[in-house]
Every structure is written in structure tokens, then in C-alpha cells.
């Protein structure tokens, strides 16, 4: 039985009235369905995403190639779908990882206070102060062989993907950490927390049973908003050639390829650019909608 008046349910009801956010939600959902069903399209069209066909380079759209082909004769539509898989998946996993790290750090800093708080927050400040892009470039350039990772992993296709998720998660948690710490500081002084301490509840019980559920809404909003920025970051890195490595497609490295052919085949740059734009802006609208829905003051 679901209570129709639980705080989350009420928030969802408010969310439903936010048209732009609902629209964005639909856009994102259909995009996710499309990229998941990429292999089906492959079978249906009879070509694979990385199949090079030098006889039909840069052809326009046709039945076999709905959006034409690129400079190596690969199908642009399929590559966009596979690129979308990478971009969306990177965005979501990295944002969730970053939020988890941020929540744990922010919650402990805010709840325990004192020296731990000072230490963790100085750590946060230092991470914020790091010049992000140069750091990412350095990290992305590390030769994994030299730090002793097994050959099998280093050689695998997915390694550039994991590398990006890890890098973003390790640098992107600061916003959530500060947000969670601030909210925890005010929540822990609330009387229901005092009441829980009065019952004799342990710190862990109070943190996870009483404080964390009340933090969920700001965390969800922060995650949604950061997915967009992670996708942008991934495109930037891939554009610079440090992110997802070809032949695996991502929207970012498709832009890089298109750069040299911007006069001959401008559409090759337009498609991935447009998709990045639509995805990021949809995530932002979705975040705005969630923010309004979770706002306790939005009563009517």
C-alpha cells in the first residue's frame, strides 16, 4: 500500500505540473530507449556501427544510412546511438558515484563536526581549488601499463570509459559534499534528532534513519543537474582526444572527427553537437522541475 500523501508522492504530484520538466523527462526517456535498442537498429539496417566502408564515404541520408555516413563510410545514425550509450552512461554513473562520495563525506563532516569536519572540508576546498581540466588531461594521459595494471584490463576497449567515470567521480563530489554538510548541520539540531538521541539511538542509526531520508531531495536535484555537466566534460575530454578512444564512438570524439571536415560535411558536427545540447538542457530542466517539486515551501 502506498500512502498517497507521503512526502515523495506529494513531490511527484507537484512535479507533474511542471510541463517543461515532464517534456524533458520524456525526451530523456526516449533517448535512453533508443540508445539501448542500438543493436536492434544494427540488425535492422544490416550494418554495424564501426564497419568501415570506403566506397560510400560521406553519403547523404538514405534508407540504409538514415543520417548518412562519415569520412570512413561508417553509419552516422548508429554511431550516434552508440555514442549516446557512452555519453549517457558516463554521465549517470559518474554523477551517482560523485554524489555517493559527496554524501558520505558531507554527512560525516556535518554530523560529527569538530576536527573531522575541519579536515574533510579542507580536503573539499583543496579539490575545488584543483585546476580541473589540466588535471584531467594529466590523469587521462597516465600510462596504465606503468602503474602495474594487468595487460588484459589495459588492452580492453572499456578502459577509457572507466577512466573517465573514475576521474569525474573523484573530482566532482565537492558540490554534493558541501550541500549535504550544510543540510546536515541544520538537520542535526532539529528536535526529532534530539528525540532519537533521547531514545538512545546510535550515531549510525540517526545518520541513516533520520538525517539521510531528509537529504534525499537536495541530493537527487544535485545529481540530476550534474549529469549534464559530466556529459559536457566527457565531450570536452573526448574532443581533446583524451576521453573515449576511437573506434568506440562517443558524442565528444565524433565532434573531433567532424572538426577536420567542417566545410565538407557540416552535418557530421551538427548531429552530435545537437544531441549533447538537447541532453544537457533536458537534464537541467529536469533538475529545475525536481527542485521545485521538492521545495517544501511550494505548498499550493
Amino acid at each position, binding site marked *: 500500500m502506498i500512502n498517497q500523501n507521503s512526502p515523495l508522492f506529494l513531490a511527484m504530484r507537484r512535479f507533474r505540473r511542471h510541463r517543461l520538466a515532464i517534456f524533458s523527462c520524456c525526451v530523456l526517456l526516449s533517448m535512453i530507449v533508443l540508445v539501448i535498442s542500438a543493436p536492434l537498429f544494427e540488425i535492422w539496417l544490416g550494418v554495424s556501427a564501426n564497419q568501415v566502408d570506403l566506397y560510400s564515404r560521406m553519403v547523404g541520408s538514405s534508407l540504409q544510412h538514415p543520417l548518412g555516413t562519415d569520412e570512413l563510410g561508417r553509419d552516422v545514425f548508429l554511431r550516434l546511438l552508440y555514442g549516446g550509450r557512452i555519453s549517457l552512461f558516463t554521465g549517470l554513473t559518474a554523477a551517482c558515484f560523485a554524489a555517493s562520495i559527496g554524501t558520505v563525506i558531507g554527512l560525516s563532516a556535518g554530523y560529527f563536526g569538530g576536527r573531522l569536519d575541519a579536515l574533510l572540508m579542507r580536503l573539499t576546498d583543496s579539490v575545488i581549488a584543483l585546476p580541473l581540466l589540466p588535471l584531467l588531461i594529466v590523469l587521462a594521459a597516465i600510462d596504465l601499463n606503468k602503474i602495474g595494471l594487468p595487460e588484459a584490463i589495459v588492452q580492453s576497449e572499456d578502459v577509457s570509459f572507466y577512466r573517465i567515470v573514475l576521474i569525474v567521480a573523484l573530482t566532482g563530489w565537492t558540490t554534493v559534499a558541501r550541500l549535504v554538510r550544510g543540510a546536515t548541520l541544520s538537520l542535526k539540531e*532539529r528536535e*526529532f534528532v534530539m528525540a*532519537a538521541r*533521547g531514545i*538512545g*539511538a546510535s550515531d549510525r542509526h540517526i545518520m541513516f*534513519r533520520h538525517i539521510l531520508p531528509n537529504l534525499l531531495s537536495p541530493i537527487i536535484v544535485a545529481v540530476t543537474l550534474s549529469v549534464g555537466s559530466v556529459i559536457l566534460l566527457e565531450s570536452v575530454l573526448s574532443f581533446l582526444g583524451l576521453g573515449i578512444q576511437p573506434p568506440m564512438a562517443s558524442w565528444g570524439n565524433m565532434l573531433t572527427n567532424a572538426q577536420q571536415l567542417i566545410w565538407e560535411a557540416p552535418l557530421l558536427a551538427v548531429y552530435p553537437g545537437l544531441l549533447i545540447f538537447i541532453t544537457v538542457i533536458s537534464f537541467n530542466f529536469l533538475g529545475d522541475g525536481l527542485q521545485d517539486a521538492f521545495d517544501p515551501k511550494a505548498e*499550493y
Partner: protein
Amino acid sequence: MALLEVNRLKVYFQTRNGLVKAVDDVSFSVDAGETLAIVGESGSGKSVTCYSLLDLLPKPPAVIEGGTALFDGEDLLTCSTPRMRQLRGNDIAVIFQDPMTSLNPFISIGEQLIEPLIYHPDKTRIQGRKQARLRAIELLDEVGIIDPVARFDCYPHEFSGGMRQRVMIAMALINEPRLLICDEPTTALDVTIQAQILELIKKLQQTRDVAVIFISHDLGVVAGIADKVLVMCDGTIREAGDTESIFYNSQNDYTKKLLAAIPEGAKVLTNRSEPDKPLVEVRDLKTYFSDYSKAAASGGKKYIKAVDGVSLDIRRGEILGLVGESGSGKSTLGRSILQLAPTSFGTVTFDGTLLDDLNPKQTVPWRRRMQMIFQDPYASLNPRMTVYQTLSEPLLYHGLADSKSIDQQVRQLMDDVGLAYGQMRKYPHEFSGGQRQRIAIGRAIATKPELIIADEPVSALDVTIQAQILDLILDLVERHNLTMLFISHDLSVVRYISDRVMVMNKGVIIESGDTETLWANPQQEYTQRLLKAIPLADPRLERRRIASL
């Protein structure tokens, strides 16, 4: 013709759950030199009535559906925005409830005071800075600010609550308004400060012949200050008349209910305490908080001495009242006894066991035996937990129930505190303040504790709800054989419920004794002042009391 004549005013709110008639068909009038009190519980529409006159309501959701409000012959509800701004500055002034949030913390008091004079919408009345300053200082002096010349340049945080409310009053009066609207001006203040502010409003009104609309929930305050009273409930007027006829000869059931709900007189139950068996012994307890602002100024470590050497016994089976004004340390003392605030010095013994020696893990079984009820039923319940979860948590945590018996026990608890069992899957925001306090009380008695510390449990509630909760507490104490420390700033409530009373001031207990003995014959000057400042909900007695001060 009266100065303000409100006729059939209707203000509706468009909300998610449909139309709410906040003010429905309200008519009244106020004359110059007259005080009209609008009395009602929260949600009765008393504030909305006044704010709609000044166009201070957010629109939407508020809609003025009909009626007229003639101020000196001019309809306030239809006048233009610039004209309304002019009226608000010149002729009608408002004093709000909370003096802490009504002043801008970044601008000095003086600057805020002279603002309406030097930026006056009416060009002919603009005054020079020097002249305005003189006028402001004169007013500060009139509202009782000592050394107004020096205080002119001080910032709001340098004033106490009562002083800030005086500044707010000076600010309201600076343009010589003809109508003054006071929205619960003393609710956030201590009882001794309240008496001073009320006296000030009364005096200023008499010397300046302004009309006053006084919004309040406190019938005692109203009895002393009002000429006419308007009783409101659910947006409608239940009764209107002059003060004496309302208080002595009320025809309306709701008014009678309000009057009957005021806690009055001594406790009716017998004292069940066993004098020789203290449940809790507190010896020389000190709770200090470091004060960073002073430490920075003087270089050394300074402390705020919230509790400064308190010794007391709570006898088994008694209700011990602890009274004091805000900042007296009474809440901190309550929390220190329960080991919820870190104590700096002294000991707390509970049933023969020294609590200070125990580490957090060892205190858990003791926590079962002592519980706390908090003031604000909105903050003391976890908004993400249902009633069922809130009530079952202490039971499960202490292993007092298993999955089979838990339903039965929660049912029993809800029954004990007067909640319907069908509401157990609901969240706190679906309940009214009184019901929430019932849930909080249910949580406190869940573990069958012996000691309950109730920290202002009825201060945030309306008077009729307050009476119900007090009776519930008395009933539970009797049935479950509880011992209680009842902390409150409201002396009438403490008298109604306590067997014994302690008076706390500046971190120390200055007087204690059996309730009625102490009431009849207070020894300390502070206690005497405190007792004298209680407003009585009886116009004749109240006026005699004010005159005797």
C-alpha cells in the same frame, strides 16, 4: 463616522485543495483613540483580515472577493498601489510579531528609523537628515530606549528582543499614523517585557489618540488593553462587543470555550510524590558553552554559563515545574539531566546510578527509562516517517516489542494519546499541531519511562488545544505513574500542572517550593516581578493589576 469601517470583507485563498475562505463576511469599525482586539486561534483569519486592508497579502493565492474598508471615507481595497504606499507610510502602521526578523540586520537602527522621513513619498513632507535624526532620537526616548543619542547608531543585534520591539514601535509611529495595527506584538517576548511593551502601547495611544487594532491569541493580554473585542474562528466573526460584555457575559459557545480553556488556578489532582525517594538527584550541575565572540575580543576563552551550579531533586511521582524567562537556561538544564547536552561539571544520579560515568553505549538502557517531549511539534517529528514508524522506533530499538506484538503496542499507544488507529500510515504534515504533539507524547511514553522531561510542550499550541494536551499529560502521569520535569515560561500553565515549582534565572535556581505556597508568598524579588506580570483573563482584575504596577 468611525476612522476605519470594514464592511462584509471576504478574502479567499485559492489552494491546491480548493478554495479556502480565510475571511468570510467580516465587519467591524474602529474609532480614533480606541483599541479593538481581534482574538482567535491560529488559522482563524485574524491576521489575514488586517493584512488585506494594507494590501500585504500575496496575490495569488489570496483574492479579495468582496466588501469595503473605508479609512476616513476612502476605500482601502480599491485604492491604487501608489496611494496605498502613501497610506501605509503616513496613516496606517503595522507592528509585527517577531522583532528579531522585522529589522534589517545590516542597517543601523537610526538609519532605519529616519528612512520613512527622508524618502517620504509626499515631497512636501520630506525632511532634512539633521531634522529627521532629532525626530528619531526624540521618538526613541519616548518608547523608552535609554541614551537614545548613543543608541541611534547601533545595529539591531546590539538590542535585546524587548528593545527591538520598542524600536519597531518607534518606527511605526515616526510618521504619526492614525491607525496602528499590532499583530501579536508581545507573543515572542518574555512576560515581564510583555508587560512593559503593552504599557508603552497603551500610553502612546492615549497621548496621540490613534486607533489601534490589536491581534492576539492571548485573552489575558486582550483583557487589559482592549476597548472592544472581536472573536474570530474559521474566518468568521463569532462574537463582537465591548470587552466587559465578552468576558463576563458571553453569548457565544466558542467564546465560552476559549475562556474556559485558559489554565487557571491550582492543580486539582493530589500530589502523589514520595518526598524521601528522589528519582533524580542533580548536584552542582554546570553546563557551559564556549562563546567565540567574546573569546575573540578578549583573547582568552570565555563561556556562556547556561547552567551555573544547579542542585535539585526530582521526587518519584511528582510533577516539578521549572519556570524562567528565555535565556534562563531551563531548556539546557533539562537536556543536561538527560545527558543530551554535554555537562561541564557536577553530577546527575538517576535511581541511584551516576549517569555521568557511563559511556554512550552504557547509557542506552537508561535512556529507556527517561524521555523528553519537545516544544515544537513541527520540528520534533521526522517529516519522512509515518506515525507508525515514529512510534515503533523506540520500541524496536530497545527490543520491547517483536514483529508480532508491535502492531498491538502501537495501537495501544495511539489509543493512549487519543489518536485514531486508522491514521497510523499518515505523515506528520497531515496532522494539526495538537495531533502532532500527541504523536510526540506517544513516542515519549512508548518505552514506559519513569521520568519525562517536558520542554515547553504546550507553548506552540492554541489555547483550546493547550488545555486538551495538558489534561492528556496529567492523565498519562496518573495512569503510568510518571515523574515529570515540566519546563515552561508560562506561569499559569505551570501552576495548573505542577506539584512543586522552581524558578530559574541566569543559570541558577533562585527559588523553589510547593506551587501554592510559592504563589501565595514569593520570597525573591524576581519571582514577585514574574508573578505580577502575568496577565489575567478578566478585564476588571487585569486593569486593577496593571494599575497597581
